[in-house]
């Protein structure tokens, strides 16, 4: 493991050492320019040689919204607490797509960039981190459509919309946690790569995207809410569309779960680094 002090100057490498997460964050700050460069590279190459380019970022949540609006809104008539179904679906599909895209890109990222990390040293968590950040660009583009929908449906915005920022931070921490954990496993067992699409699909149904949280019976609610994405998505819906404050106990639960998962995953990633670098 690496120990660094005085920026990049003095370095001791030993097989096993206590992982000091605080030091890891300091190192990341030192490498901020590389994070930026890899982030830029990721978004540059993502839509190179495509015609629609970044419009693809809008395509996924929009097409799903249209489909869900017809099936669940018109035909199945799923209750939406009085919100028009298209914006009800899009408000969830937007952050969900961010999460799904981010983990689908970040989990195989280390293997994808194998040639890079085997040739030069830098903290490897930068690679999945850059993937997650790049997915954030897609998210921002798709958010423009959301703003148009808000204006179209005349959603009244309240002060509670400021909750969006802490919600985003929790979501990004959770995304990073999932990415780092599976990234490290994928470096050793490529099975993970095949499991991602399945995981994303199952997870989407376990998250209140095309149905409201209220359809979950009360006695199962707490178990259901252990999925941080449930609390986060419900939070977005409440603070943006319904203009009310989020359910605080769900918020607290999602935050705690997300932060714990992030810290454990980061620690696990650093611990397994020496092992997966040998076999990646």
């Amino acid at each position, binding site marked *: 493991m690496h120990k660094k002090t005085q920026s990049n100057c003095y370095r*001791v490498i*030993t097989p096993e050492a206590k992982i000091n997460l605080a030091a890891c964050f300091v190192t990341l700050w030192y490498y901020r320019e590389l994070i930026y*460069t890899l982030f830029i590279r990721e978004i540059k190459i993502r839509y190179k040689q495509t015609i629609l380019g970044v419009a693809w970022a809008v395509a996924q949540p929009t097409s799903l919204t249209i489909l869900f609006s017809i099936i669940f809104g018109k035909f199945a008539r799923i209750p939406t607490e009085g919100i028009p179904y298209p914006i009800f679906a899009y408000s969830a599909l937007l952050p969900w797509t961010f999460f799904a895209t981010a983990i689908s890109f970040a989990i195989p990222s280390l293997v994808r960039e194998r040639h890079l990390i085997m040739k030069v040293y830098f903290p490897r968590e930068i690679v999945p981190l850059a993937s997650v950040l790049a997915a954030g660009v897609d998210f921002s583009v798709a958010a423009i459509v959301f703003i148009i929908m808000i204006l179209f449906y005349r959603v009244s915005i309240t002060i509670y919309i400021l909750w969006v920022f802490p919600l985003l931070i929790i979501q990004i921490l959770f995304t990073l946690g999932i990415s780092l954990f599976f990234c490290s496993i994928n470096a*050793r067992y490529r099975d993970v790569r095949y499991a991602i699409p399945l995981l994303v699909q199952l997870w989407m149904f376990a998250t209140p995207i095309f149905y409201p949280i209220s359809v979950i019976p009360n006695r199962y609610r707490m178990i259901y809410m252990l999925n941080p994405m449930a609390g986060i998505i419900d939070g977005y819906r409440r603070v943006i569309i319904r203009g009310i404050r989020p359910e605080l106990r769900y918020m607290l639960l999602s935050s705690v779960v997300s932060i714990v998962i992030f810290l454990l995953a980061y620690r696990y990633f650093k611990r397994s680094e020496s092992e997966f*670098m040998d*076999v990646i």
Partner: protein
Amino acid sequence: MNSVVRFENIYKRYRLWSMSTFTLREEITLFGRRINPYFWFRRSLPREKDKSYFWALNDINFEVKNGEALGIIGANGAGKTTLLKLIAGIIYPTKGKIITVGRLGSVIEMGAGIHGDLTGRENIYLYGSIIGMSRKEIRQKFESIVEFSELGRFIDEPVKYYSAGMEMRLGFSVTIHLNPDILLIDEVLAVGDEKFYHKSLEAMTKIIKSGKTVIFVSHNLASIVSFCNRALLLEKGRIISEGSPQEVILLYQSRLKDTEHLKLQGTGPMKRWGTGDIEIKKVELLQDNQWIQENRTLAGEGWGFRLEYEAQQRIGAPVFGMSIHNSKGEVVYGENNGFREERLSFVKGRGIVVFTTPSLALPAGRYSLTVYVHNLGRGIIYDWHEQAYPFEVVENKPMERVGQLYLVSSWEHQAKENQ
């Protein structure tokens, strides 16, 4: 002077997947035991089977002082690249401790991270920051990088349309502008066309001579001698020898001839060894002055030899070389074509190699010639004729000169006008 790189009892072990029975199931068991408090006290994790591991490095201890240039020599698979990757921090030791002081620049393989879909310009920024330059630094050196790469207007084209040579030039040009305290180089000089090869060699020499700490892995022994002031010989993951490059290379060569499967050993009275994949069939000494008797030549006159070889199959990148020994057996001169424009990409069948010098700079005496053909990169000697061809040098007018060289010279004189 302080040491800037220090290895303390470094061991590096790799798992051999073909021998290993370590599976996901075992990993889960292991994980289960790690989190089970009972095993925290017992510390009995599953026993590692010795067979399923390979020790790439064994008890490596050395240090590199500030400003030193260390060459690492060894056959393929000796652990050279593993060692370099450990210094760079890319992989971790299994046991031991590595200390490095200063900004590291690793050139383990140039061009890692260059992306085909991006333009040359974008790749300069990308690759530059990957190897540790700041954006500001790249911006400042950008013009110079482009100039060195000779890419000109192609710099704004996607790299996937570049030729292999152009891509290498791009990577090398960025690397050469990195300004680290410790530079790690692994086999990077084999790039581009002849012209660029010499240019990059020159640039490399400049960096090394500028007093940077350099750790250099190369199969090219000539470059190790010229760049480094110390060398390590690795064999099967252990340090066999450490010392001046000349000494270490001599030892390396002698060990090679001991370990090689030698078909040609002991044929005839001369000392000869090699695999025989390329066989030196005949060696003839050449001299300008035909009137003098065979194997006796005049100092300062043109001299050379002509060598006939035969290769049963196609052999890639062979190096032909020679050395001249004095009557005590010491090398007075030696060179090979592996580091020159005349180096060969492959040989097949029969052929002739001719070596000439316009003026033999040896004083009168008895000498013998060694000729060889090898590929030290692969650790193979094809054929080696050690001090097999004796010859004598005579001087036209003996007693006129002293010393260990014979220079073709003249004296001129011009008187200045008296005032």
